């Protein structure tokens, strides 16, 4: 064994370990940008992964017809029922829309539609050791994707680009405990924060925290992005409230959110590469969070 530590083999392996350690240190500083090694390896592997993903998708799709015939029939029946309900809701919607337009005209409100630049991308890889279903997409800096671009589908918010290479990007989902999204209850307009929760992520759910005690949020409310952080445009649907409860400590409330997207099985996404207010200040959200925390402290003092 002693000879090994004096051999050139040990020196080579040690040198490689030191080089990798240097890259690791660099990665801690340049958050969101890939290292040279990642760029090279990612550029080589991304097209292979993309090909593999499309092939496996075709194969599983073909096999699913046989294995899931009964399930598909049930799903079809369920969708018919949902369709019938949606038609009914559509009638209500048209009535509300008409009423809303009249009210807007009365109040003279000019609705602003933010201009989003979007790009479709396919999921080409998922890390098996990731606990929060993060994934890799087939678009990168060469396609105009940048660090911290929001990732959505037509159903709502999926996550954010957490690292980007030339032809690939890694997406951290809203189920991840490290991601916080400023959110808003569509009905009550209360502002809070949506983030991942270890216990809820297993069921594909996330947590809405810092809800003031006097808030009127309730089960079934739709939650959307508040757009105050500059990271996400305002109005992207995140999910629906499943449960509201008091925090075990403190006097704030939290809610369990069922995302509108099936994040665990997502195959295609859209990346918002540009939107109005992108990168703007955090002041509004910080104020909202500060207010919420102040309210919590005041309530604690009162107790």
């Amino acid at each position, binding site marked *: 064994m002693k000879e090994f530590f004096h051999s050139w083999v040990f020196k080579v392996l040690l040198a490689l370990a030191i080089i990798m350690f240097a890259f690791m240190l660099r990665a801690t500083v340049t958050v969101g940008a890939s290292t040279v090694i990642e760029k090279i390896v990612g550029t080589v592997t991304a097209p292979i992964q993309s090909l593999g993903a499309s092939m*496996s998708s075709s*194969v599983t799709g073909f096999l699913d017809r046989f294995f899931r015939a009964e399930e598909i029939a049930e799903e079809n029946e369920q969708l018919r029922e949902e369709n019938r309900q949606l038609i009914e809701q559509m009638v209500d919607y048209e009535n509300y829309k008409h009423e809303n337009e009249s009210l807007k005209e009365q109040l003279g409100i000019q609705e602003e539609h933010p201009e989003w630049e979007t790009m479709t991308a396919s999921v080409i890889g998922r890390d098996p050791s990731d606990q929060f279903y993060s994934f890799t997409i087939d678009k990168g800096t060469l396609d105009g994707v940048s660090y911290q671009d929001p990732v959505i589908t037509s159903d709502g918010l999926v996550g954010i680009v957490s690292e980007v290479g030339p032809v690939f990007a890694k997406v951290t989902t809203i189920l991840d405990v490290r991601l916080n999204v400023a959110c808003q209850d569509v009905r009550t307009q209360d502002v809070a924060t949506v983030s991942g929760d270890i*216990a809820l992520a297993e069921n594909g759910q996330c947590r809405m925290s810092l809800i003031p005690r006097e808030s009127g949020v309730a089960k079934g409310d739709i939650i959307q992005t508040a757009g105050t952080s500059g990271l996400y445009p305002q109005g992207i649907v995140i999910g629906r409230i499943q449960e509201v409860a008091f925090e075990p400590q403190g006097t704030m409330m939290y809610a369990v959110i069922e995302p509108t997207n099936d994040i665990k099985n997502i195959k295609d996404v859209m990346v918002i590469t540009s939107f109005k207010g992108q990168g703007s200040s955090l002041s509004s959200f910080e104020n909202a969070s500060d207010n919420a925390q102040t309210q919590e402290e005041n309530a604690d003092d009162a107790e």
Partner: protein
Amino acid sequence: MNRRTKIAAVKYIVYSLIMLFLYVLQTDPNFFYIDYIKPVLVLPFAVCIAMFESQLVGGLFGLFAGVLCDVSSTVLFGFQSILYLCICTAVGLLVVYLMQPSMINSLLAVGLGFGARLLLEYFFYYVMWGYDNSHLILLDKMLPLLIYTLVVTPFLFLAVRKMHRFFEEKMAEN
């Protein structure tokens, strides 16, 4: 370049291509899922290579496996590369000085090595930050991942042993 060197080069190219193929399978969003858990394939493959080849070759393939895992992962780049380099070098050395390249030993090596890697991630990414219910990550995610990875290890061990023997025979013929 003599014939033996050529055969050795072909062997390492074949190992590298299989490693890439396993990486694509490992990260594929459709295959091999059991309740959203998927095995890690490249580390057991690198560990098995380290058992049959020298510690240098084992270490280099460990590094390759680590870089591939780092590219697809959201953890800090280099974390898995350094760990897998160390694990595979250690396995190569253990085979030289202490143990036989056998299926049981490959399971032990992968279990201890990958287990250590998961525990380190658990500590640095969850325990240190004080997340609620972090033990669920260990029990519901990491433990099934480790078990699933151990289940596929014997197949990779047999494949590497077969390839190693095949190339050894080819070299012996010359």
